[in-house]
C-alpha cells in the first residue's frame, strides 16, 4: 500500500510540501475551554499541528482528549478560546472584531476539509462499503458518479478491501469496517484527519491492519491527530505526542521525550499502567 492520498493539494496544506520556516501551523488551538453541565472537561488547551505532522493524544479516560478532538470539527461547540484550521476559525466567523456563530451549512462546509474516524466506526449500515465511501463525494461535493465510484473503489483497494466493495457493514469484521471508515473520510480529500480511538473497539488481532493503514497515511504526509492508547503506534508514527490529564495538557513533545523520558509524574504513572 503506497500513496493513499490522491493528487497533492496546493497550498500550505499539501502533504510533504516543503514548508518555509515559520509557516502557519495547519491547526492552532488556543486556550480551548469546554464544560458539560457545569463540569469543565477542557481547561484551556493550547497546541498546534503543522501540515504533514502526526500528533498523538494520550491520556487516561476522562482526560478530555476525545472531547478536544470533537471540538476540532465542531461536533462540540467550545465555550472559550479559539480553534482554527488552515487559518479559518472553526464554527465561528470573525467580522469587525465580533464573533458570529456560523449557521449549519457553513459548519458543514468546514467539516468537509476535516475527516474523522470514530471508535465505533459509525458506518452507514444501509449502504455498501462503496456507497459509504462515495455518498458524501456524490451527494455533498457533487462529483460525477462514475468518477466518484472509480475513486471510491481505488480508496477501498488501498485500504486492502478491493473485493468487499459491495458488502454491507454487517458482513464485515471490525477491522474491515474501520478501514472502510478511513476510506470514507479520505474520499473527501481532507486536509486534516481526526482519529478517535480508532482501534479501541477492535479484537486484538485486527488492530494491526488498521494501524498499518494509518502508518501508510502518515508516511504519505497526511496531517493526523490520533487519540489512542496504542503507545507503540505513537512511538513509531507520531511526530508529536501530547499527554492530557484532567482537561489540561500535562506534557508534549517528540515521542522520544514524552514516551521514553517523561518529566511529569502523571505521565510516568499513566505510561507505567498501559505498558
Amino acid at each position, binding site marked *: 500500500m503506497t500513496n493513499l492520498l490522491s493528487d497533492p493539494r496546493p497550498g500550505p496544506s499539501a502533504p510533504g510540501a516543503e514548508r518555509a520556516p515559520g509557516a502557519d501551523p495547519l491547526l492552532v488551538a488556543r486556550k480551548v475551554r469546554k464544560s458539560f453541565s457545569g463540569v469543565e472537561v477542557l481547561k484551556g488547551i493550547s497546541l498546534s499541528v503543522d501540515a504533514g505532522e502526526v500528533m498523538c493524544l494520550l491520556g487516561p479516560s476522562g482526560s478530555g482528549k476525545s472531547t478536544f478532538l470533537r471540538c476540532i470539527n465542531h461536533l462540540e461547540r467550545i465555550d472559550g478560546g479559539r480553534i482554527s484550521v488552515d487559518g479559518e476559525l472553526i464554527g465561528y466567523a470573525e467580522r469587525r472584531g465580533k464573533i458570529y456563530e456560523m449557521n449549519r451549512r457553513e459548519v458543514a462546509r468546514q467539516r468537509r476539509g476535516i475527516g474523522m474516524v470514530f471508535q465505533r466506526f459509525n458506518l452507514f449500515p444501509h449502504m455498501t462499503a462503496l456507497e459509504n465511501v462515495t*455518498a458524501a463525494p456524490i451527494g455533498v461535493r457533487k462529483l460525477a458518479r462514475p468518477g466518484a465510484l472509480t475513486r471510491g473503489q481505488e480508496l477501498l483497494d488501498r485500504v486492502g478491501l478491493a473485493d468487499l466493495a459491495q458488502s454491507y457493514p454487517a458482513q464485515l469484521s471490525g477491522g474491515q469496517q474501520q478501514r472502510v471508515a478511513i476510506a470514507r473520510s479520505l*474520499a473527501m480529500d481532507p486536509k486534516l484527519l481526526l482519529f478517535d480511538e480508532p482501534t479501541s473497539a477492535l479484537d486484538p488481532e485486527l488492530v494491526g491492519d488498521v494501524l498499518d493503514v494509518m502508518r501508510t497515511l502518515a508516511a504519505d504526509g497526511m496531517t493526523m491527530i490520533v487519540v489512542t492508547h496504542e503507545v507503540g503506534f505513537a512511538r513509531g508514527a507520531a511526530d508529536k505526542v501530547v499527554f492530557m490529564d484532567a482537561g489540561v495538557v500535562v506534557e508534549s513533545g517528540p515521542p522520544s521525550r514524552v514516551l521514553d523520558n517523561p518529566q511529569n509524574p502523571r505521565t510516568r504513572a499513566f505510561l507505567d499502567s498501559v505498558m
Partner: protein
Amino acid sequence: MLSTSTPPDTNPRQSLAEEADDHDVIAVPLRHPWRWVFAAVLAVGFAAMAASLWANENVNHPTINEFILDPRILDGVVLTLVLTIVSMVISTVLAVLLAVMRLSNNPVMGALSWLYVWVFRGTPLLIQIVFWGYLGLLYSQISLGIPFTDFTVFSMDTNTLIPAFAAGLLALTLNQAAYSAEIVRAGMLSVDEGQHEAAYSVGMSPTFTLFKVVLPQAMRVIIPPMGNETISMLKNTSLLSVIAVLEVYTVATQISSQNLRQVELLVVVSCWYLFLTTILSIPQYYLERHFGRGNARSLPPTPLERVWSVVRRVGALPRGPEADPAESQNQSERTDAS
C-alpha cells in the same frame, strides 16, 4: 449427510464412536403427540362453527353471492381503497414533517408539532369526521386573503369547496398524521447518534443527513407499525358513512336498508375488508425487506423464491441421492420450519 463408505474393520464399538465424531448427529426426532390432539380438537370446533353458520336459516346465501360482485359494492371497494392509500400517503408526508419539527432545535416548530399531535390525537376520529363534514355550519364561506383586511383572492361556498369525499379524506389524513408522527419520531430516535456524527464529519448538511442517513434507517423501525396503521385506516374508512361518503360500508348499509338483508351485506363487506387487508400486507413485506438490507448478513428468500426452490426440489427428485447442495439446504430449511 449420510456416508456410504463401508465400515472400517476395527472394533465395531470404536468405529461407532468415531463415526459419531465425524458425522452429523442422526437422531430420532422428538415426538409431539399433544400437538395432534390439540389440532384435532380445534378442527372439529371450527367445523362445527362453520356448519352452524352455513346451515343458519337466517342467512340467505344467494343474497351474499348476488351482492359480493355488485357494481355498487365494487365502486365502494375502489373508493375505500383510494381513501386508504391517499390518506396514508399524504399523512405519512405530514408525519415526517411533524416529526422533524418536533425533533428540531427550533422551539416554535417543536411546540407547533406538539400542539398538532395533542389536538388530533386527543379528540375522537368520529367527531373529527363529523366536524369536517359539517364545516359549512362553522364557516359558510372559505376565502383566501390577507387577515384583518378586506382583501380576498377568492371566496367559495364551503360545501362546494369541500364535498363529503374531501371532508372525509381531510379528517382521516389529519388524524392519521398525528399518530404517524409519533411512529416516525420513534424511528428517527432509534437511529444511533453516531450516524449523525459520521454524516456531519463528512460534511453532510442536516437535511441531506435526514434524507440519506437517518430516514432510510428509521424506515426499518417505522414500517411494521405503519403497516398496522394502514390496516387500521382501511377499516376506519367505514366511519365515513356518518357523512355519507360512498365507501363500501356506506353502500352496503344503503342496499340493506332497501332489501333488509343486513347480515348478508355485512358478510359481503367483511369479506371485502379481509381481502383488502390481505392485499395490503404484501407491500409491507417487501418494504421491510428493502429497508432491512444491510442489517441481516443475508436476506431470507421471498415467498416466491421459496415456491421456486420447492419446484426445483421436486424437479430434482428423480436424480437420486447425488443431488445438488441447494437441495440439502432446502431440506435443512424444512426441518427448521417444522
